């Protein structure tokens, strides 16, 4: 989730249909600049190099969210578009199809580890991926990155990941496939707990 106010102006975003480093580029209607979600910045057009601010959100399940927030509002299935939302549009890709689509894109076969979700953190030019499955088991990783002591926390109740420095400052992160992060930041290492 990102703030849509950029340089004091409110932007609206659409899907460009273009890919960069195995990730979909968005564009803004106001300047037609292309934005990378993984870089969290505009990569072409008038907004080039302008940063996107990441806002906190949780990727969780409906039962967990409802239990914690019984008064939640939910995005309506009446979107103005005729789509069968009960059907997963990527179902046919999930087996070999999805893997081969991505492998084609990357130009080689993707391993099991590469298809795992990680918490990607980039600090002062240093970049690392924290394996989400192991984080879910242990609840916390302590590490040193970009000259800072950082803590990666996972809250089981809310499925929320929070990354903080030892000074208590919140640090931006993204939950993405390991190979997507690695494509963007080839020097990134996978954290070994």
């Amino acid at each position, binding site marked *: *989730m990102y703030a849509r106010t950029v340089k004091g102006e409110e932007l609206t975003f659409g899907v460009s249909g273009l890919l960069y480093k195995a990730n979909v580029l968005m564009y803004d209607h106001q300047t037609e600049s292309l934005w990378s979600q993984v870089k969290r910045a505009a990569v072409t057009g008038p907004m080039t190099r302008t940063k996107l601010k990441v806002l906190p959100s949780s990727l969780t399940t409906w*039962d967990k969210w409802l239990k914690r927030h019984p008064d939640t509002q939910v995005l309506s299935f009446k979107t103005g578009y005729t789509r069968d939302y009960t059907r997963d549009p990527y179902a046919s890709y999930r087996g070999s199809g999805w893997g081969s689509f991505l492998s084609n894109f990357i130009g080689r076969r993707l391993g099991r580890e590469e298809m795992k979700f990680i918490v990607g953190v980039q600090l002062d030019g240093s970049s690392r991926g924290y394996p989400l499955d192991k984080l879910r088991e242990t609840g916390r990783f302590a590490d040193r990155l970009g000259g800072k002591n950082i803590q990666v926390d996972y809250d089981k109740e809310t499925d929320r990941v929070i990354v903080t420095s030892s000074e208590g400052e919140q640090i931006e992160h993204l939950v993405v496939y390991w190979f997507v992060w690695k494509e963007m930041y080839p020097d990134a290492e996978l954290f070994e707990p």
Partner: protein
Amino acid sequence: MRTVLILISILMFTQPALGWEFTKHSIPIDDILSGGPPKDGIPALFDPQFISAKEAAKMLQSRDRVIGVTMGGSVRAYPIRILNYHELVNDRIGNTPFLVSW
């Protein structure tokens, strides 16, 4: 210089990403590839509408994934079932415009 300009124009014309403004860029334009669907082929949502938890419970399974947002007393869930078809939701709570992306 002329060779460079000719090279650039050839590169621009062989790009799948025609119709975009690439005068300024921070990444090699060659690395931008067509992903299949055209611009807005996956339609982002604007002015999204919301329903109550009770109403939504009829549509959602307990293990369905949602993106959850809490902001200034407002609580909203965005089912991945819907985001799969739209990828982006341009939303706002109070004075904060934000983008939910999948």
